[in-house]
């Protein structure tokens, strides 16, 4: 290689550019919108679409950090329980007489604390997989929420609190939730793709052993990512509680399935080391808009849950089967 320069950037290739998974998701989004506006008249109005985002964005804040976790090769199935616990603690402290802003901060602290506990357990006990740890904390967190609130409902929030779930930015038609989501999405996309922290997350997902040997503080990065996930659970809890106008221990049941399905559908490899934030965000809009449309057509939520379960399985299975076919063609 006399004088040869190996370019660190891939040369731009138009075909490869359009063969990316993200374009597939864009097509899916357009297909969902077109099909729905054919079925139900004024679906495709810009106002309607803006409002539709509010229906599914509340849980979406966790998707952003779940991308980090799955790229690291881990998984967190305690997120839905964490939402319930943060929401319950936030509303109980408020109805006990604490200022709403202070109790929101307490809720954020509880969420981050739960994430921190997950992170400590996963990083300190390397023998334990994240599956079993978060499976246990899933029932602990929701269990504590039940212990605190029993079968009661808290709904005495101040009027301004509903702004999070129902408000718009200024006089525009952009929902506050959408603006907040875009803000967080840009921040986490930059962290994942443009910082050394993000590169280290990818490195851990590719090979935990070699990352450790090359001096990456694997334990600390895992701890930070799980704690951030806990924090985003609490952020989701604020939006969801505001949206529902009440808090119960059984809110957000089953959300972990949807969040993981969105991330996997977004092209993030479940084995770790591969994925992009944009894909996950686009997948979120595919599933969210499809679900909203089914709600408009009065299709029961159970059908959607079956569809999401199948979608999750097929989006993991498809690349494997394609690989098998390719291998059998070569040999």
């Amino acid at each position: 290689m006399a004088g040869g320069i190996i370019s660190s950037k891939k040369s731009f290739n138009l075909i490869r550019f359009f063969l990316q998974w993200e374009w597939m998701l864009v097509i899916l989004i357009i297909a969902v919108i077109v099909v729905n506006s054919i079925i139900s008249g004024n679906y495709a109005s810009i106002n309607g679409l803006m409002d539709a985002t509010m229906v599914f964005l509340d849980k979406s804040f966790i998707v952003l950090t779940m991308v980090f976790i799955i790229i690291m090769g881990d998984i967190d199935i305690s997120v839905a329980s964490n939402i319930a616990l943060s929401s319950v603690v936030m509303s109980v402290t408020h109805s006990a007489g604490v200022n709403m802003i202070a109790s929101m901060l307490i809720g954020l602290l509880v969420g981050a604390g739960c994430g921190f506990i997950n992170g400590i357990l996963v990083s300190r006990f390397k023998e334990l997989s994240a599956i079993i740890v978060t499976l246990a904390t899933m029932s602990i967190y929701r269990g504590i929420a039940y212990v605190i609130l029993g079968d009661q409902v808290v709904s005495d929030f101040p009027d301004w609190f509903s702004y999070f779930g129902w408000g718009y930015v200024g006089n525009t038609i952009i929902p506050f939730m959408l603006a907040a989501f875009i803000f967080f999405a840009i921040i986490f996309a930059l962290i994942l793709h443009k910082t050394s922290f993000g590169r280290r997350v990818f490195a851990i997902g590719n090979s935990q052993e070699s990352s450790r040997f090359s001096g990456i503080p694997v334990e600390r990065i895992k701890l930070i990512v799980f704690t951030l996930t806990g924090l985003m659970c609490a952020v989701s809890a604020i939006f969801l509680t505001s949206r529902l106008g009440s808090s119960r221990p059984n809110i957000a049941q089953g959300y972990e399935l949807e969040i993981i399905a969105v991330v996997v559908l977004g092209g993030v490899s479940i084995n770790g080391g591969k994925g992009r934030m944009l894909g996950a965000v686009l997948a979120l809009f595919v599933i969210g808009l499809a679900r909203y449309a089914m709600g408009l057509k009065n299709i029961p939520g159970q059908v959607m849950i079956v569809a999401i379960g199948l979608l999750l399985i097929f989006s993991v299975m498809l690349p494997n089967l394609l690989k098998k076919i390719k291998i059998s063609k070569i040999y």
Partner: protein
Amino acid sequence: MKSDAKVLPAGKINWSNLVKFRELGLAIFIILLCVVINIRNDKFLTWVNISDMFLDTSILSFMALGMMLVIVTRGIDLSVASILALSGMITGFIVIAFPHIHPAFTATIGLLLGIFFGSITGMIISKGGVPPIIATLGMMSVYRGITFIISGGRWVNAYQMPDSFRNMTRNTLFGINNMIVIAIIIYIIFYYFINHTRTGRWIFATGSSPEAARVSGIKIDRILLLVYMIMGGLSGLGGVLWVSRYASAQNDTAAGFELTVISACVLGGVNIAGGSGTVLGVLLGSILIGIINNALPMIRVSPFWKLAIQGLVIIIAVLVNVFIQRDIRRRNTLLRKI
């Protein structure tokens, strides 16, 4: 090594000793716990309560055996409660439509339905290459959703069921309730299957080291499929017994039961990283869970504590397992140095 062949090529003396010690320790802990609970409420250690407790634990105890095999192959099955509910619901409808079916036939239908549902999950995992956690998380909601869809949100109620079906779990054989008899039979079959048949040992070999198992000629994808089929079959049987016992089939039957089954395994010393687990350990783990569930209302703990306690029990049990393994590894390295 005649009866302790449960741990795969044990070889190391202290390993099998520790496993035995673990089960003895668990048994002593159970006895101590019973004594303490009985001091708080002297109705706990009565014959009626104990037989009730075994009755309520029987479904859990044999489903935990299936889960043990799944965990031994380094997998996990979160869909068991949904398979239980779906098979229970379908057999419930069958019983309403054909009230004169013999209960044994109904139970067989449930078993076969479960095997069928389990084989779908197994195919997705073994042929599709989907990680077990993703596959079973997905199938959990698929089966649960189908339960809602086919029932249309309705329940199968006690008055719709024929007496023969309801009495299936109330009649006794030699003075022992049928459900307990079924559990005992399954335990005997499993003990033989796991320790004394080739396929049983292959399951453990697959879990200990998939690579080595593949090289030595074990067809791993068949073993995986078999394991999920067994798990599905046991869940399906559990579904029929559940519907008969509680005399109703609902959409949210046994919701969250998968956690109970997994915690019975983990408590019984089944290594979550795969490769080891014993029938006796799973039995003791199930009994411990049964005692906790039965004793909480008796010592006046609010039922809202149940979920949190269950999670805590899982995390404590896996942490104890980790510390035992670390101890073993330390001793092994010490032995090697000498």
